[in-house]
């Protein structure tokens, strides 16, 4: 990071191989995607605030917003924000490494990521921009006039970027831990990142294959998904969700990891039942994650026996998730909690994960989805667990690590005000959608003339969206101001025991650590109460 005395040199950023700068570039890119996709969300909510056309005349524009909102939030904000920014910047610091194993490959990853961001942004302004939802189901994605190719190539670029990142970080954790650091001494965030990248490495190629077949069907005349020529439309859905359900854990796991770092540091406590959390919870999810995708196809016409089999495997996910939740809750027990903005976001996450997780239980039951699938109940459920929980955890992490990245604190009145605007906003927005979802309100509807009595609920949700918009804008402004003129705090303002706080300056210089890090046998990053 540059300080006031240094002059800004753009080449040092574009051609950087420093994991910390690459992390910051991921943060900027993913926040840009988040801002644009957030504006789309606001437009979506405004359109739904009245019956009939509100700001547009037909569904196509609305569908383009939905496509961009979904694709950008998941593929360009959540995954790169968590595995790109947070892992890049902090994972090497946490294990006492000077950089990642392959810094140049890391630089190539960020270039691919920016190419994808540019392609995604260009897809908004081209004529016939994609209107195929982030899922891109055929036959519609093939028969539509829209440019499905933009979707396919964006997924390809992000996929390449993630695969390279996965190899890089797995090698880094395996080979570059500080001397003396055993597997049971790793930060939970390191474990969750390893798990997320392992999932990425196994499952991304399947998604890449699926969207490539889409490309071939649409532009090269193949018939993978065309039943009239012997293809099958369900093939795509199976391939797509074989990646995209595990992708939920690629988002969930690093978010949980950040939460553990923040909670343990602010509660000054060891992680409750560490081994159960790591080997039962985190690795348990990695093992089960490949056997649950059919719950996205419960009403898609799969064979009945398969739908029942995957109902059981889907419910089984509650066991590893339960172990993680117990460790998280247990870390508060007999703690000594200091509240600041990072901890406020972390505290909110406890409730977001409860609401999001528990509303997933009915959706695991095949017969319940016969009524609830593709309604706004599902929409609210996955926003709580994936969008809100993960974004709040990421924000918690940004406030927590802000002093490490800049040497300054981002806490202050604007930060606290934005937090409350966000936390009230998300509840006002998504609880009405749970209610009308159970009553039958479908997702992805630009208009709902068949359900006029839902209009007040949509209006409340729209009001909530404005609260979130205020909160998010406040948060971003606050970070920009704080990075330039926030209060200077020392190297370790939270008195954390994790290596990134105890062994390197804020911000860390080239090579990260002034002296080589060696850890003792009984050291752990959560050493508060020996």
């Amino acid at each position, binding site marked *: 990071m540059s300080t006031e005395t240094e002059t800004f040199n753009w080449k040092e950023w574009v051609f950087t191989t420093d994991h910390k700068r690459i992390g910051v570039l991921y943060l900027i890119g993913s926040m840009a995607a988040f801002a644009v996709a957030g504006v789309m969300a606001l437009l979506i909510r405004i359109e739904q605030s009245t019956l009939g056309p509100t700001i547009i005349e037909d569904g196509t524009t609305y569908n383009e917003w939905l496509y961009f909102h979904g694709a950008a939030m998941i593929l360009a904000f959540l995954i790169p924000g968590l595995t790109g920014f947070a892992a890049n910047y902090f994972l090497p610091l946490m294990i006492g490494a000077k950089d990642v194993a392959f810094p140049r490959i890391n630089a190539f990853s960020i270039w691919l990521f920016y190419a994808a961001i540019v392609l995604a942004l260009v897809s908004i302004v081209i004529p016939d921009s994609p209107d195929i939802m982030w899922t891109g189901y055929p036959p519609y994605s093939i028969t539509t006039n829209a440019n499905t190719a933009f979707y396919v190539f964006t997924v390809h670029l992000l996929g390449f970027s993630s695969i390279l990142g996965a190899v890089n970080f797995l090698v880094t954790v395996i080979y570059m831990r500080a001397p003396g650091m055993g597997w049971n001494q790793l930060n939970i965030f390191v474990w969750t990142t390893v798990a997320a990248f392992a999932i990425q490495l196994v499952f991304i190629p399947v998604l890449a294959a699926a969207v490539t077949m889409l490309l071939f069907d649409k532009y090269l005349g193949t018939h993978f998904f065309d039943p009239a020529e012997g293809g099958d439309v369900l093939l795509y859905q199976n391939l797509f969700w074989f990646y995209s359900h595990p992708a939920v854990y690629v988002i969930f796991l690093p978010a949980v990891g950040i939460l553990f770092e923040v909670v343990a540091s602010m509660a000054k406590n060891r992680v*409750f039942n560490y081994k159960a959390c790591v080997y039962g919870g985190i690795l348990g999810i990695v093992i089960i994650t490949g056997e649950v995708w059919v719950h996205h196809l419960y*009403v898609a016409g799969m064979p009945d026996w398969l739908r029942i089999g995957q109902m059981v495997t889907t419910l089984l996910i509650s066991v590893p998730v339960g172990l993680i939740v117990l460790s998280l809750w247990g870390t508060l027990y007999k703690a000594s909690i200091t509240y600041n903005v990072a901890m406020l976001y972390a505290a909110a996450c406890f409730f977001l994960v409860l609401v999001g997780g528990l509303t997933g239980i009915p959706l695991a039951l095949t017969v319940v989805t016969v009524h609830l699938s593709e309604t706004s109940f599902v929409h609210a459920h996955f926003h709580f667990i994936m969008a809100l929980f993960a974004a709040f955890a990421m924000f918690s992490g940004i406030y927590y690590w802000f002093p490490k990245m800049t040497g300054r604190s981002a806490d202050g009145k604007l930060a606290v005000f934005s937090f409350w605007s966000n936390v009230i906003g998300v509840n006002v927005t998504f609880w009405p959608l749970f209610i009308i979802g159970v009553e039958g309100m479908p997702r992805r509807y630009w208009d709902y003339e068949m359900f006029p009595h839902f209009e007040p609920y949509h209006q409340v949700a729209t009001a909530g969206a404005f609260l979130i918009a205020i909160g998010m804008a406040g948060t971003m402004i606050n970070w920009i101001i704080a990075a330039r003129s926030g209060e200077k705090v020392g190297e370790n303002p939270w008195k954390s025991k994790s290596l990134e706080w105890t062994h390197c300056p804020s911000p860390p210089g080239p090579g990260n650590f002034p002296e080589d890090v060696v850890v003792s046998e009984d050291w752990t990053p959560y050493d508060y109460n020996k």
Partner: protein
Amino acid sequence: MKFFNTILSGLMGALLPFAAMANEAYEGDMNPADQWDRLWNTILLDITVIGVIFGVAAIWMMVKYRAKSPDDVGSLPKLTRAQTMAWIFIPCALFLADDLFLSAKGWSLWNVYRQVPEDALEIKVTSYQWYWEFDYGDGIVTEELTVPVGKPVVLRMTSEDVLHSFFIPEYRVKEDVMPGRVTYIWFQPKKAGTTVATCTEFCGTAHGNMYTDVIAVPPDDFTAWRVKAKAEAENES
């Protein structure tokens, strides 16, 4: 390993009664939609109880364990081996028990949903961008669905273009409709009246406008409607 085997077999034994509890739920001749509502209430109770327990625990700890001074540290004790095992196996057993309990209930009702009564009235449904066609098999083809009250109705559905999904919120049924395959749902209207069927798989520009009426009429009126509709169909052709 013997230690683990003993624990595992003990766990499985403890879980069986939970699964057995679920079996008594669906006796009697209830409409599938009513049974769905009953299952939904059970699940809602289940997740609310779990949510309240965890939520209250979190708030209690967040308030009680605030730092007294900035230099305080927490005092979570290290778990002994026995405590570690207990904190793994007891919660896992409870989670598994709840999973199996809900699975068993879900499975029972699923069987009801997928076994079509033999006396069901069969109607063919074809979906297009952006409307449905209902074929009663005797020359009657409509764009609204008329069904008799009190009689099971099975829809055999396929699509002529892209994916759609046929959803009647009132009857708690939904299944995707796609080209190249035939899917089905069945339901049994309880009372006369008009409700809505709507598309729940994204199908393009007018996805949000793709809906139609489902009109349930008394059996006698249905017979009369059918005679009249057939006569109209023959007149047209």
